[in-house]
């Protein structure tokens, strides 16, 4: 696994997310209401919509297209039409930056 610098901590408000593209793939980087950071794949598993335009509510990210929801901390699909788990990635804060761990 390699750690990749994704964005500055200040780029994301608490209880929000941003999109991060790297190596031909797209990811979503989150901060929860306490400021802890998380990362998932960037596209909804239902219809491949970018989750970065969705709404973070508590531990859930809502797809901006169809109201499907995932727990972005575990990746679990929590509301239809999403049924397939969202892939999560480790995330950490290093200095003022957020890094995510990606498989080599």
């Amino acid at each position: 696994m390699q750690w990749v610098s994704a964005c500055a901590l200040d780029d994301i408000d608490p209880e929000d997310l941003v999109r991060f593209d790297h190596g031909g793939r797209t990811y979503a980087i989150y901060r929860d209401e306490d400021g802890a950071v998380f990362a998932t794949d960037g596209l909804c598993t239902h219809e491949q919509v970018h989750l970065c335009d969705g709404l973070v509510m508590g531990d859930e990210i809502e797809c901006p297209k169809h109201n499907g929801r995932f727990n972005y901390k575990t990746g679990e699909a929590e509301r239809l039409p999403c049924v397939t788990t969202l892939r999560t990635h480790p995330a950490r804060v290093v200095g003022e930056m957020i890094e995510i761990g990606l498989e080599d």
Partner: protein
Amino acid sequence: MPTDQTLADRPEPLVERRDYSLTGPSAALAIERGLASAEWYHSDVPRKVMKELMQRRDGPAIRDTLIWLGLLALTAAGGIYFWGSWWCVPFWAVYGVLYGSACDSRWHECGHGTAFRTPWMNDAVYQIASFMVMRNPVSWRWSHARHHTDTIIVGRDAEIAFMHPASILLNILHFIGIVDIWQWMKVLVRNAAGHLTPDERDYIPEAEVGKAIFWARVHVAIYALTLAAAIYWRTILPFMLIGGPRIYGAWHMFMTGMIQHGGLAEDVLDHRLNSRTCLMNPVSRWIYWNMNYHVEHHMFPMVPYHALPRLHEVIRNDLPAPTRSIPAAFAEMVPAILRQRREKGYFLKKTLPPTARAYREELHQTIPHRDGLKE
């Protein structure tokens, strides 16, 4: 042998009917053209503003639902009390619209999960409204998801109202709901018997099929009890209360529903080309739960109905001017639909204000073998 004059007077023939099935050649073509699950045009909205607009609240929908259910109870009571005299007519007229038309917007908004903040409230009203509008609550959830993924993409969208060439007679009959409930009742009975069509299986995941059959059986059982009550008491009163409003009160649902996409483009990836925002009176907006802001709704479907007027203000400079009223919408839509019956590929293309970004024509023009998209 006809003269030149008679040839000139002869109307153009109707366009060849397109394949609107979800499993036929149009479906394969839509995928080949990159129109399925594509990325759509969005107006720019600052992230902080969009987050604010998407916030869920229980208050507006609880208020509206209490008014809705209260009015249903009052008008039903009045209709029953005055049954047998002409005084019952205004009560049933109002009850009919509250049941047979307002159910559609409640079904729709709760299906999106945006009416209430509390999930069980969305689910409860969704189930009630699904029954009232005669839609299978499972299969229609999936068909509507597809409608938002592939809005008016032929071969993908299961909810295209005007299939060209559109039947004038059928669309007039829709206002009195007879054809409509006959069609939907057949679907419910077929689903209740355990049968789903290939189109239904195209958008309903296998794991959901059992639920679709279960809810169809629940709906059919309630209608069977209504019929039994009508026979037992020898009166149509049970159908005035249950099911009947989908005939005598559905006119408002169809009037507003036709405006959503009628006369506009098929097979485009810009909701400004295939959806219509139409200003309307406050009563219709309440019945319709602000779905008159239809471009806004399709572009940002997770914005709740009560926030759509604010969203409209935020992005209006990037949209065609809204149609000013329901009559104005019909005045522009009906001639366009009639022209679409005879002119392949015609659609009503609205002028954008100078402040708007251009339509995504470059994307449509690059689609191979695309015929008939013109102004």
